[in-house]
């Protein structure tokens, strides 16, 4: 069985940030996914969602659920990441004051996504946008 979900995210819309992660969490509960895995998956997605809201103009999230793994593709139209290695370092951040006032933007998101997944691929083009591929094994 294969399921697919798509979400569209608007940059700057903090009130809706987390909607996709929340929706996915409910779906994963319904199909009886291990709660520990659900937490890892939705935290990674929530961090990615916040990144779109905080940094990009807009973005798309595509979730593919297969029996053996969940693959989440997060792509945005935005400024891109100049130095991915640096962006992966804890504490490095380009977030605005507005984002920091929301309790985010501390420069921990990407490394926390990595810590909560089995595989994270990042491709980014400065001035165009960023694509994350987040893979979580279910078995």
């Amino acid at each position, binding site marked *: 069985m294969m399921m697919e979900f798509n979400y569209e995210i608007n940059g700057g819309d*903090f*009130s809706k*940030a*987390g909607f996709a*992660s*929340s929706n996915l*969490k409910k779906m994963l509960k319904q199909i009886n996914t291990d*709660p520990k895995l659900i*937490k890892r998956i*939705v*935290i990674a997605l*929530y*961090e990615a969602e*916040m990144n779109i809201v905080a940094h990009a103009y807009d973005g798309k999230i595509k979730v593919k659920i297969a029996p053996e793994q969940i693959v989440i593709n997060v792509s945005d139209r935005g400024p891109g990441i100049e130095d991915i290695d640096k962006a992966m370092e804890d504490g490095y951040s380009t977030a605005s004051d507005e984002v920091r006032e*929301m*309790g*985010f*933007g*501390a*420069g*921990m*998101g990407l490394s*926390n996504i990595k*810590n909560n997944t089995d595989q994270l691929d990042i491709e980014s083009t400065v001035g165009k946008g960023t694509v994350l591929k987040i893979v979580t094994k279910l078995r």
Partner: protein
Amino acid sequence: MIKMKVDEIIKAIGGKKLCGESCDVEVSKAFSSDLMSDVLTIQTEGTLLITGLANLQAIRTAEMSDINCIVFARNKKVTEEMIQLAKENDIVLIQTSCSVFKTSGELYKAGIEPLF
């Protein structure tokens, strides 16, 4: 390890419950932070979140992290929208006039353990 119920927490810090009447929540540990990025990195089983950050993302963070009780310190205003989202996710919200420091101190005294 001590297990505290919501009513016991409220008694210890002099707070009030904003929602979660029917939630049967017990906590043994607590984490105090206004930085949700940090909250997203912790172990959260049986953990209470103490924060002075009152916005929708604090509730979302709790939802994603499986945190089922939040104490808003410093009498921070909790909006109807936040309460609604908490109710949908069976999260108990408590408001107190105590500071984060005092809230943490009183609960520590009562036996609640730090995460680290």
